[in-house]
């Protein structure tokens, strides 16, 4: 082999504490190294050109660059060696900046360490081999999971981009959390007026197939070629016939189950259309409370239905869809505030969540837009808002900021004053977080124009006194304890991952973080990608987000999908596991441990079982390589021999000792 070594000064970043020329000179003694030099900025255009030139002049077939972390520039240099005519995997990097020059103070120790890291890279490179990507065709169809505002945006953008879209929504209607909101900050425009047209677009777009009351049952395949099974849950209404006239809803005698769309503030009929703007505007039966389905008598809806679309016998239906890419937009759920004993754990009816309050404010809500408190229906005069309920609190395992609560609390304080001019709002807060366009101004308006009293401090307890609730908290600015008698307490509950997100993540092989939010590929540079190729994230399933951010991500995910599916053929990462069938004994242990289902059992021509890697599914983690006792399955580019070469370079085994 002919290896070239390039030691980067990175200006003074490396050269300040590492003797780069001396490292380059030492590298020349390493086996197979035929060229070694130091360079000012390896990643700069002249730096890259010098590498390319050296490859050509010195006839190199492998390159080592010692510079910054490979997490920064590995791709850059791989492209450079590719331009020089080498395979991109005939390249190794030694991290002598983040791991050497920036952390060690002593120059000679740093220099020695840098030389050893280069040696490690050389020994690994000596065992590298060119890897070629495989090419394969893709299915030009997109699955969007979740019909909230992020999913709606992603679906519309993909459909407008010419791709077929299948949108799957768990609830009866799309719209998500946004559909439940009365107004949106900071413009205080009507939420459903903004969202409604987009929902209609979904229903009418020729490229979009919408499945509501549906969930993803299973996902197989890989980027470009996923096989998805969708479970369409029985609605007991034939939606091909239902006109959404609502007659059945009016006549339904069973109104015993809480209405989830109205956040359980009121009950809903057993056959229902959740809200006037629902898409699709179709009725569905709640099987757990329907008299016909639970007790076998009633059937009033079937009798009144003008198109005879009620079907009590209807069963769940499984639909298979082949797609090339998947957008996950499953949103968030509200933190269960009952974990806070100091807020009464549900003993006090007039302690409600912010989303419940939204429904009280909404003209389509249970009170027709009149604020009436749940206990006695009275109009509250003193409304206390408590922020950070389930946000920024380690004690309930929610150390993160939910991001949007400060803003909607300000909005609700404003709306309270609009609805009840003689009311007084109090807001207990920790910090105001309003970093958005017109956001801080909006909070100021709540305080200054609408007279909301902001108290900086946590609430220690709520207790009833007479028909009021006394909210006791700290006012940390005044340094005192305050007690506010309240008619209604609204908890600004934080966001947590959507129920079922972890299970869905398992099906999609997208890892959730410790709070159940899906992990993006890179927090800055790949915010909507996941580590499973072809699966993208949009909206609050990745972390709490407000509406503009969710819409932005929906579009971003859509653009990634469109970019992906615009290619006629895709290439798979060749740094995947590979089975040496001559060594494989077919024990199947690798199949058992692969988290991606990327290994299957095949039979060789003698009928012996062997493992085989599905290149396009394998993500390159290497769990199988450690599992295989024969070392028959090796993760390319991180083979046993490559890693052992690095170990041996660092710790040369004792040789030349003959004891007999």
């Amino acid at each position: 082999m002919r290896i070239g070594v390039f030691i980067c000064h990175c200006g003074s970043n490396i050269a300040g504490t590492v003797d780069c020329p001396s490292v380059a000179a030492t590298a020349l003694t390493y086996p197979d190294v035929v060229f070694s030099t130091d360079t000012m900025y390896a990643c700069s255009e002249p730096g890259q050109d010098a590498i390319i030139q050296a490859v050509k002049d010195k006839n190199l077939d492998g390159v080592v660059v010692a510079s910054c972390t490979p997490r920064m520039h590995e791709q850059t240099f791989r492209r450079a060696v590719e331009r020089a005519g080498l395979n991109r995997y005939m390249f190794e990097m030694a991290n002598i900046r983040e791991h050497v020059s920036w952390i060690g103070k002593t120059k000679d120790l740093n220099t020695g360490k840098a030389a050893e890291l280069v040696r490690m890279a050389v020994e690994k490179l000596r065992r590298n081999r060119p890897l070629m990507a495989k090419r394969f065709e893709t299915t030009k169809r997109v699955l969007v999971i979740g019909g909230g505002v992020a999913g709606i945006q992603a679906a519309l953008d993909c459909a407008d981009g010419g791709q077929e879209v299948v949108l799957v929504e768990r609830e009866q209607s799309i719209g998500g959390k946004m559909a439940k909101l009365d107004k949106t900050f900071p413009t205080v425009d009507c939420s459903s007026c903004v969202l409604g047209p987009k929902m209609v677009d979904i229903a009418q777009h020729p490229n979009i197939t919408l499945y509501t009351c549906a969930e993803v049952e299973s996902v197989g395949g890989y980027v470009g070629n996923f096989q998805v099974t969708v479970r369409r849950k029985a609605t007991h209404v034939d939606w091909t016939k239902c006109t959404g006239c609502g007659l059945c809803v009016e006549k339904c005698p069973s109104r015993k189950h809480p209405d989830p769309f109205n956040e359980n503030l009121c009950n809903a009929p057993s056959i229902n259309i959740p809200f006037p703007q629902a898409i699709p505007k179709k009725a569905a039966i709640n099987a757990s409370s329907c008299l016909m389905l639970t007790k076998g008598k009633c059937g009033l809806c079937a009798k009144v239905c003008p198109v005879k679309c009620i079907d009590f016998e209807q069963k769940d239906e499984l639909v298979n869809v082949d797609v090339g890419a998947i957008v996950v937009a499953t949103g968030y759920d509200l933190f269960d505030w009952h974990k806070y004993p100091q807020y009464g754990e549900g003993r006090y009816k007039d302690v409600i969540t912010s989303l419940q309050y939204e429904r009280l404010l909404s003209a389509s809500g249970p009170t027709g837009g009149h604020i009436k408190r749940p206990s006695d229906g009275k109009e509250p005069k003193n409304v206390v808002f408590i922020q950070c309920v389930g946000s920024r609190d380690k004690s309930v395992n929610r150390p993160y900021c939910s991001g949007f609560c400060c803003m909607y609390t300000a909005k609700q304080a404003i709306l309270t004053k609009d609805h009840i001019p003689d009311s007084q709002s109090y807001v207990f807060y920790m910090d105001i977080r309003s970093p958005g366009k017109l956001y801080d101004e909006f909070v100021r308006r709540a305080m200054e124009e609408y007279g909301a009293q902001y108290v900086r401090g946590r609430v220690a307890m709520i207790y009833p006194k007479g028909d009021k609730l006394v909210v006791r908290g700290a006012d940390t600015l005044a340094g005192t304890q305050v007690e506010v008698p309240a008619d209604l307490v609204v908890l600004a509950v934080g966001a947590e991952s959507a129920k079922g997100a972890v299970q869905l993540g398992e099906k999609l092989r997208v890892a959730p973080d410790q709070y159940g939010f899906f992990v993006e590929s890179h927090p800055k540079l790949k915010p909507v990608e996941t580590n499973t190729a072809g699966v993208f994230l949009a909206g609050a399933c990745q972390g709490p987000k407000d509406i503009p951010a969710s819409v932005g991500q929906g579009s971003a995910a859509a653009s990634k999908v469109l970019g992906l599916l615009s290619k006629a053929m895709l290439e798979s990462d060749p740094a995947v596991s590979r089975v040496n069938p001559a060594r494989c004994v077919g024990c199947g242990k690798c199949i058992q441990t692969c988290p991606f289902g990327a290994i299957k059992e095949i039979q060789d021509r003698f009928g012996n079982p062997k493992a085989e890697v599905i290149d396009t599914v394998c993500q390159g983690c290497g769990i199988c390589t450690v599992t295989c006792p024969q070392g028959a399955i090796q993760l390319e580019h991180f083979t046993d021999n490559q890693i052992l070469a690095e170990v041996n370079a660092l710790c040369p085994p004792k040789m030349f000792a003959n004891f007999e």
Partner: protein
Amino acid sequence: MLKVAYYPGCSGQGTSLEYDTSTRAVCKALDVELMDIPDWSCCGSSPAHTVNHVLSAALSARNLAQVEAMGMTKAATPCPSCLTNLRTASHKMDDPEFKDKVNALLDVPCKNSVDTQSVLQVLAENVDPELIKGKVVKPLTGIKIACYYGCIMNRPPEVMRFDHHENPMAMDNLMALLGAEVVPFPLKVECCGASYGIPRGDIVATLSGKLLDASRDVGADAIVTACPLCQMNLDLRQGQINDALRENFRIPVFYYTQLLGYALGIDRAELGFEKLCVDPRLALGRIKQPQQAM
């Protein structure tokens, strides 16, 4: 028969003598044997821990070592203040370094093997409610009771490890078992002012006054408590509170053991109702007499 080492605490020797005697009486009636700790001494409450944690813990540890010498691992005390000190000492001694410091002060080292509980916890967790129910001869039917736990019986939760720290229910459940109507008392873990009674009577008047006010609001005939200091502030100082707040509270404040003993038909002499400052007769009079003796 359940045996626990018994730490009466100093209040039980004086201001809350009736708590001690009624506790002993009900435990006996419920087959819980209280074994007096020989030569017990002050637990360190209340001032010691404000001065020096090690010395304070040493006072408690001495008593715990006495329990260990009895060959027992479980101790009980009626007083939440003692309980706090004993349990805090144990909790801190989980750190071996702290334990060594404490033991350096003791003649007999403490192994820290004793679990101290309140007598209330022992009764709530170790005595079958059905057994209690079966032994009730005078159900408390007719009386409305607010259960007041005080601020330290259940807190801090990681030390006390008993019941809910914001909304404890052990006493509520016990009183309900005896037939009383237990009214939801929102301030059941609020502070009564505690030992501010001596230096700052005004604070006690405000805080305890609020408690009395809340109990009146919820319609309680009486308050039941498990703490000598709470009882004293609410009962003994009720007159002072009335003076300070221009109120006219007349709410008797029982130890839960007194009402428990009453329901179990224990000799009233052992229950010490006569020691209460606010006359309990009106409240007790609300208890409907059993229709007929069986």
